[in-house]
């Protein structure tokens, strides 16, 4: 298969390219997908992986094989919410 050019953007929100990911892997030697994410910012932008998760997972699969390590966590909020709206829910908290 044609190798993706290093220029190709993997994470659109943060503008992280394959080349940047390769450089980070070489320098910092992450040992899991979570760690790769944290040192490159892959998936840490506004979409929080909604768009790019399959791309990141495929990179994780290629680099770290072990499936259990390629599962990235989901945390609240599952959609962006303004801080103002976020706190409103506590007023109505049961």
């Amino acid at each position, binding site marked *: 298969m044609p190798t*993706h050019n290093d220029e*190709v953007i*993997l994470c659109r929100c943060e503008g992280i390219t394959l080349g940047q990911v390769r450089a980070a892997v070489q320098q910092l030697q992450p040992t899991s997908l979570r760690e790769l994410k944290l040192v490159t910012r892959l998936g840490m932008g506004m979409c929080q992986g909604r768009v790019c998760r399959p791309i990141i997972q*495929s990179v994780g*699969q290629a680099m770290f094989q072990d499936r259990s390590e390629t599962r990235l966590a*989901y945390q609240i909020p*599952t959609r962006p*919410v303004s801080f103002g709206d976020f706190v409103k829910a506590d007023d109505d908290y*049961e």
Partner: protein
Amino acid sequence: MAVEVAVVGAGPAGLAAAGELGAAGFRVALIDEYPIPGGRLLGQRYHWKNLVWDGKQQAETLVDNVRQWHEVRWLLQRSVYDLERAPSGWALSLNPGDPSVVYAQAVVVATGATEVPIPLVNWTLPGVLAVGAAQVMTAVYGVAPGRRGVVVGANPLSFAIAEELLEAGVKLAGIVMAPGSENVDVVGSLDDQWQRIVGLRGGGAWPLRTLGRYMTHAWVRQFLMSHAPKSGVPIRGVRLRPNVVATAVEGTERVTGIRLARIADHDESIREGWSEPVDFVCVSGGLRPVPDLFRIARVKTAWVPELSGEVPVISPWGETSQTGLFAVGNAIGVESALVAIAQGHLGAHGVTRYLRGQSLDYRLAEPDQHRIQLAREQSPIAFHPKIGQGVEHLRALFLESLGAP
């Protein structure tokens, strides 16, 4: 706001569920992020056995069926960003916060599936869009994404959008295959992609349908790949180009072209590269179920490739590992709208039993499950050639969980 059932997602599954629940007299909140209910139905316009499948019309019918029940409250243009247990059942946090929390005794999650993107060099240029976007633009708003485009990524959905675009009078340079490499392989090899296209059973898409039977043989696929012309094999007007791969989007301020390359069949290496002029590129990696709310709610999930991704482990009634939390539609496996609608009815029946304290013995779900299977068989589109295996696998996981503490 406190209701008996919250339905998250007003696509075909959610609408079907809300309609049934409304008819049963429950107080329902129907929540959807989009201002118009209908989910993926809105963008669908297919030809199928000489009938036209008009998704918007289908959606309107489902919506009308729900609107007749006044106990169903519509909460459109609101996202659910948290789903957690509450003393009375469940608490759903909404954004915008109006209301900010919905309390429900039971929840039906019908959040559907989302697109899998295909990264290409320069794919952030204006003019690159996903299939769903192209469908909404053309079918919902009547806007063509461009004058001449190309669809990158071969799967039943991309075939559907290609047909829709052609029908809308948009020129296409055909469907080309998605690239992959050792590091970024979102949709699999060319062979994987081919296998998904030939899962398209009906749709009158002969010769694909006939070929489909032969395509299970690897040598047939390879023969076609090496002998198909560069310009593609015309199938109902859509040029399927099985040995041409997209490598980059071209343009400086917006899309002006697509860079393509011929793939050698045996080792998938690039042979030649050239450009073709297009003003939009539709990337199609298929759909994947959205597991976000399930993960947040601590529902047990499983990775099932035949269902296109991560799905909750559900009982035959659609109940997840969390009591009172049900799941239906594309969120439990990417299939057609007909299947989603049938699942919506099943989920509603399950919730009804749950709320009335009736038995949720999974064997009692057989008739509803049978209806879902019929819908599956009647569907023109199967998003994965081995969907039946996926369904079985999920059922096996559920039975396994019964044994677990």
